[in-house]
């Protein structure tokens, strides 16, 4: 069951790019979907702050940070070059509840013994409500604030909000909806939806205090982002309007400058079932007000896309995403062939991706206070990525296994060429531009999965992933994946409605380049996660607690990363 779901999730990943949320019901719940993906061993690594990750899902292959990738299949909101999951359309959860978490290890009474202020640990707090009515309407609201990972940056963030030459007491004591930890993000929003048999309509508004590294130099921007979204569906057609006003909110000369993003998305919705035929057209207008550090390459642009997936006789499957916007374009196609011989199953997959942009929604020029361009992300140049995957899966009794190998080749890939670095506010800031890594780069991924399930309610899975950086300009790439990764996943659903889910993960350490003057080698380490979840009253209620990585050991997992700590999160949910 787990294996099938996981395989299905991975297939979707390959077909749809990074539509990574499909396996989410199998994941250990953490602070955010990204952290849930990490806790489940699906590939995220290198936590920087609560909203920033170095993300490379196991099957994503390309040596880039996939949080910053454009996903033509999903066309989800992209802000400052990356897919930020807290700017979603609709509520995160259609239930009402509370979540509270803490980085474990607050000093509490130990301060009395230590006779000094201990290293503070910060909480995560979420409260949300979803109230449906019989008429088909629903209203929802949510407050989500993750203070985890903020204590390293809090003093510098505070300093940026303190008028020079004043006492600490005069510091503007907020950049969040509550508390004094200067968290990475603090989001308050709500909306209403209405649906009937013909279609649906939705409206939402949100306001987010957010410290985000800029996509170019990685300097932290203190933003207050206001969002208004509206959408309307009729049968399979949809129209969505997304509007963002991102304003710098500190005491620097640039305070009050802003970037306005207006998007209008017209699309045909995915019908139910295997066949997919989806078209979309995105109009995006970006307007810079004042001396905002990011200048968009285009004030206005239109991008159109076409997704198609089809399968024949259960043996062939084609899936493709294609987009075109002015002189920019991209295609991503996959052809899969299966053969079954009794319990044996062979699969071959051929894939190709070509484009002339790394991410069409991340084409900014970043300037410093004097107006000099310090980071240029507007490079356009054709790159290619091809690969072939051969897989074998089989089963014996309650065991199933699966072996696959995927050699791939990239040609003329784009990379950020950092010319200089500066250490400021406990972060590396860089300057440089996107360039072409001339030539072919070769890699290969081997994967072995062994799973055992005694019934639908209990099972375990052992996965080993091997990545080889074979040849080519690897030294220019942002991410060189860990050579060895292993995951043991386990779940047990007890008849009392108690679900236990655990993962033990090992990674030999990836290399992250061009974010710091020296290449950053992630330390090899174990991670362990456990979730205990109780379903209540016919699955209408849930209480859960997740113990996230008791082995964390305060490791730093990315060049600008905060200490990774043991976190405990507990929640209670109710579906009205």
């Amino acid at each position, binding site marked *: 069951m787990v294996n099938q779901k996981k395989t299905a999730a991975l297939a979707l990943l390959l077909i749809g790019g990074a539509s990574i949320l499909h396996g989410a019901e199998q994941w250990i719940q953490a602070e955010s979907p990204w952290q849930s993906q990490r806790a489940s061993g699906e590939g995220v690594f290198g936590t920087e702050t609560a909203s920033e990750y170095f993300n490379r899902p196991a099957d994503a292959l390309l040596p880039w940070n996939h949080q910053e990738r454009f996903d033509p299949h999903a066309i989800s909101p992209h802000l400052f070059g990356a897919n930020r999951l807290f700017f979603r359309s609709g509520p995160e959860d259609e239930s009402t509840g509370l979540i509270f978490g803490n980085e474990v290890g607050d000093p509490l009474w130990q301060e009395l013994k230590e006779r000094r202020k201990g290293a503070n640990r910060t909480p995560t707090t979420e409260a949300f409500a979803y109230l449906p009515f019989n008429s088909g309407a629903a209203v929802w609201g949510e407050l989500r604030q993750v203070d985890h990972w903020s204590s390293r940056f809090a003093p510098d963030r505070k300093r940026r909000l303190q008028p020079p030459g004043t006492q600490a007491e005069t510091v503007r004591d907020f950049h969040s909806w509550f508390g004094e930890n200067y968290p990475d993000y603090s989001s308050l929003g709500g909306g209403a939806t209405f649906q009937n048999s013909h279609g649906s309509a939705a409206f939402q508004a949100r306001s987010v205090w957010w410290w985000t590294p800029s996509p170019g130099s990685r300097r932290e921007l203190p933003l207050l982002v206001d969002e208004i979204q509206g959408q309307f569906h009729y049968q399979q057609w949809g129209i969505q309007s997304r509007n963002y006003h991102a304003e710098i909110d500190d005491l620097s000369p640039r305070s009050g400058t802003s970037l306005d993003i207006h998007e209008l998305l017209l699309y045909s919705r995915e019908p139910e079932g295997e066949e997919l035929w989806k078209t979309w057209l995105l109009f995006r207008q970006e307007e810079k007000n004042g001396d905002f550090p990011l200048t968009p390459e285009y004030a206005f642009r239109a991008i159109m896309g076409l997704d198609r997936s089809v399968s024949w006789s259960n043996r062939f499957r084609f899936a493709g995403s294609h987009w075109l916007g002015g002189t920019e374009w991209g295609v991503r196609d996959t052809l899969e062939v299966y053969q079954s011989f009794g319990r044996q199953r062979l699969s071959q997959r051929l894939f190709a991706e070509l484009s002339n942009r790394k991410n069409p929604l991340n084409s900014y020029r970043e300037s410093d206070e004097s107006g000099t361009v310090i980071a240029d992300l507007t490079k356009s140049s054709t790159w290619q990525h091809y690969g072939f995957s051969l897989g074998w899966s089989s089963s014996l009794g309650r065991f199933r296994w699966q072996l696959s190998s995927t050699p791939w080749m990239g040609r003329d890939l784009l990379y950020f060429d950092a010319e200089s670095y500066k250490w400021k506010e406990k972060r590396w800031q860089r300057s440089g531009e996107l360039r072409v890594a001339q030539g072919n780069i070769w890699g290969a991924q081997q994967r072995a999965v062994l799973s055992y399930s*005694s019934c639908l309610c209990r099972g375990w899975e052992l996965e080993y992933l091997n990545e080889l950086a074979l040849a080519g300009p690897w030294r220019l790439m942002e991410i060189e994946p860990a050579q060895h990764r292993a995951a043991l996943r386990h779940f047990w659903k007890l008849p009392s409605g108690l679900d236990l889910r655990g993962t033990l993960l090992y990674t030999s350490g990836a290399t992250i380049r061009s974010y710091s003057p020296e290449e950053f080698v992630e330390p090899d380490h174990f991670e362990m996660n456990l979730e205990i979840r109780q379903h209540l009253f016919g699955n209408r209620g849930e209480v859960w607690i997740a113990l996230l990585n008791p082995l964390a050991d305060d490791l730093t997992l990315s060049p600008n990363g905060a200490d990774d700590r043991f976190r405990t999160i507990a929640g209670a949910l109710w579906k009205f």
Partner: protein
Amino acid sequence: MSRRISPVLFLLIAAAIGWGDELCSDQQLPSFLTGRIAAEAAWLTPLKETDHLVEQSPSAGLIISSPYWKQIDVLVVLRYQQPEVYAYSKTGERSSHSLYQLMGDIGLMVPISPPNNPRYQFRFGGGFSLFFIRATEEIGSYLLDDNESDFGNWLKIETPALSLGGLKMRLFAELFTAWSLPQRTHFLLSGVTLESRLW
């Protein structure tokens, strides 16, 4: 040391569960058809790490419990204490302060005694705690005058119940570990509960 052993333990437990007896059937969610409420009066004793810095203190709590699965009960506890603590300033002067502590517990209680007779039945249990503390006033340069919170765990043993009309009285001892740093903090809570049927 324990960090190195943890992955091995995890593997062993996962393997044991994977190979263990079938314990799979259709989900029968706990229905909470009956519920009980109990008042708790107890004495909080700090152990080793902080015993000379935190005074013993009385504690009052409210427990709601319900049958969870077979003979296992689930309980939710809310508890309050206000211990006196001693803090040292940078110059070494000792001062006394008052600290609010609010504790929330959730966990399971299992009957453990061999004869299947509730009159002689000891109960044993454990679960998770959330500690929330705040000093009543500013304490030097400590963080304690701000809201501080952390998770922890508890283990509890209860004596057989003494029936007093519709009420049941039990004695208990409970060991708490708060997951604080640089060291964990331990407390012992011992006292009495008086329980009544709620629904």
